[in-house]
């Protein structure tokens, strides 16, 4: 029974990580290199890092979903959407640190061979940025797996939801939680460790 929950938890975590990436990575470059738009990114970061995920989920599902039923009345979508935005705010900061780690020199060198700012980012900065971001990305992924457990409050049948159901059915308040704790570790640890390992190996290759 828990297997379905595990799949949903994994799906929410991975898709919200990807949503966060697709907003967070450009946001980090905008914040670093585009002074005029820096303010917008900062406001976005402050809002989504400042409000608890639980509040956001309830707000989007029950509140905004009331007026915009599609797609917000789809609980899995809303959970992924909210976690994705929160993750975008985090990832924007992770990647900003990574860009700083790469160093402005790489950018200057790229400009010197005739690249525009945008093409320097595409051809020189982005290929290196993931290597510098791996420790942060690993913990961000782990955070998303854990925070996806909030989705049970809007009725998503993920791992936490299933655990509660089993507890209610068996009246055993210990075993289901222990099993689910173990499953959460199983979901986070290998991927986070693999990311870390990949990052270290790549870093060695880049000589940093």
């Amino acid at each position: 029974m828990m297997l379905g929950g595990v799949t949903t938890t994994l799906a929410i975590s991975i898709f919200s990580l990807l949503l966060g990436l697709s907003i967070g990575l450009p946001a980090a470059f905008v914040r670093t290199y585009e002074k005029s738009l820096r303010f917008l990114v900062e406001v976005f970061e402050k809002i989504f890092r400042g409000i608890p995920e639980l509040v956001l989920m309830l707000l989007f599902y029950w509140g905004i979903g009331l007026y915009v039923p599609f797609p917000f009345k789809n609980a899995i979508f809303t959970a992924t959407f909210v976690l994705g935005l929160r993750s975008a705010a985090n990832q924007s900061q992770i990647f900003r640190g990574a860009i700083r780690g790469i160093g402005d020199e790489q950018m200057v060198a790229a400009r010197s061979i005739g690249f525009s700012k945008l093409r320097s980012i595409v051809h020189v900065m982005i290929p290196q940025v993931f290597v510098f971001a791996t420790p942060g990305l690993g913990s961000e992924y782990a955070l998303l797996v854990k925070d996806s457990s909030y989705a049970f409050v809007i009725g998503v049948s993920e791992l936490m939801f299933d655990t509660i159901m089993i507890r209610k059915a068996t009246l055993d308040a210990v075993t289901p939680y222990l099993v689910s704790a173990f499953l959460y570790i199983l979901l986070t640890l290998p991927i986070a460790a693999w990311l870390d390992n990949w990052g270290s190996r790549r870093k060695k290759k880049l000589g940093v």
Partner: protein
Amino acid sequence: MVGIVMKCEHLWKTYEPHLIAVKDVSLKIGEGEIKLIFGPSGSGKSTFLRCLAMLTMPDKGDVFLRDECLTKPGVNLNKERARIGFVFQHIWLFRHLTALGNVELALRRVLKQPKEEARENALKALREVKMEEWAHHYPAQMSGGQQQRVGIARALARNPDIILLDEPTSALDPELTGEVIDTLRDLAGKGTTMLIISHEMPFAREIADEMIFYDGGTIVETGPPEQFFTNPQSERAKKFMTRLIMKTRRE
């Protein structure tokens, strides 16, 4: 009369609040000429060189690359920068690319050469700096001197109108300096137009058409190398040369 490859007129660059790195500097470099800038550190030489490549925007004055004015509004600076080779003091190769990748990148993505042609030209440039065998190595696997030679190949490969070199050997130990100097000597022999910041005095004497003493954000004295070695005109140049020659002798 030789054509002028690059010139600047009344160039200024000030850093807030009162640090003037480039103060009303004018300079011309003709086809095939090699000019060498030297002077105390912190005098603004690097900033000046970067202003010429428009990597740092000058506050006032004009920079010309052949007939093109780079400082007038609306110029496609990316396109113009591709015509200028720049070699950095601390090398700054693209860490995620091999030697070949570093040299090839601009050929493929800026000059839009087809894959085969870009590869061939990149290998040719690596051959010129005697780094062809290292084509598939990453910067982290090379010595500083080898990295800098790849840096020179990267600047050289797109057949730039001029190569600007910002102290290409000052981050290297004497042995590695030698191999980079050899590379530059080869380029000089082929008639490459270069503006070099360097304090390698024997090398300067051998290849420079003109030496430029730069101090306090401005050109203090220019002349043929012999003038600086035997009879510098300004007091400041005289003092600086004495110290440089002593240091070179010690080494």
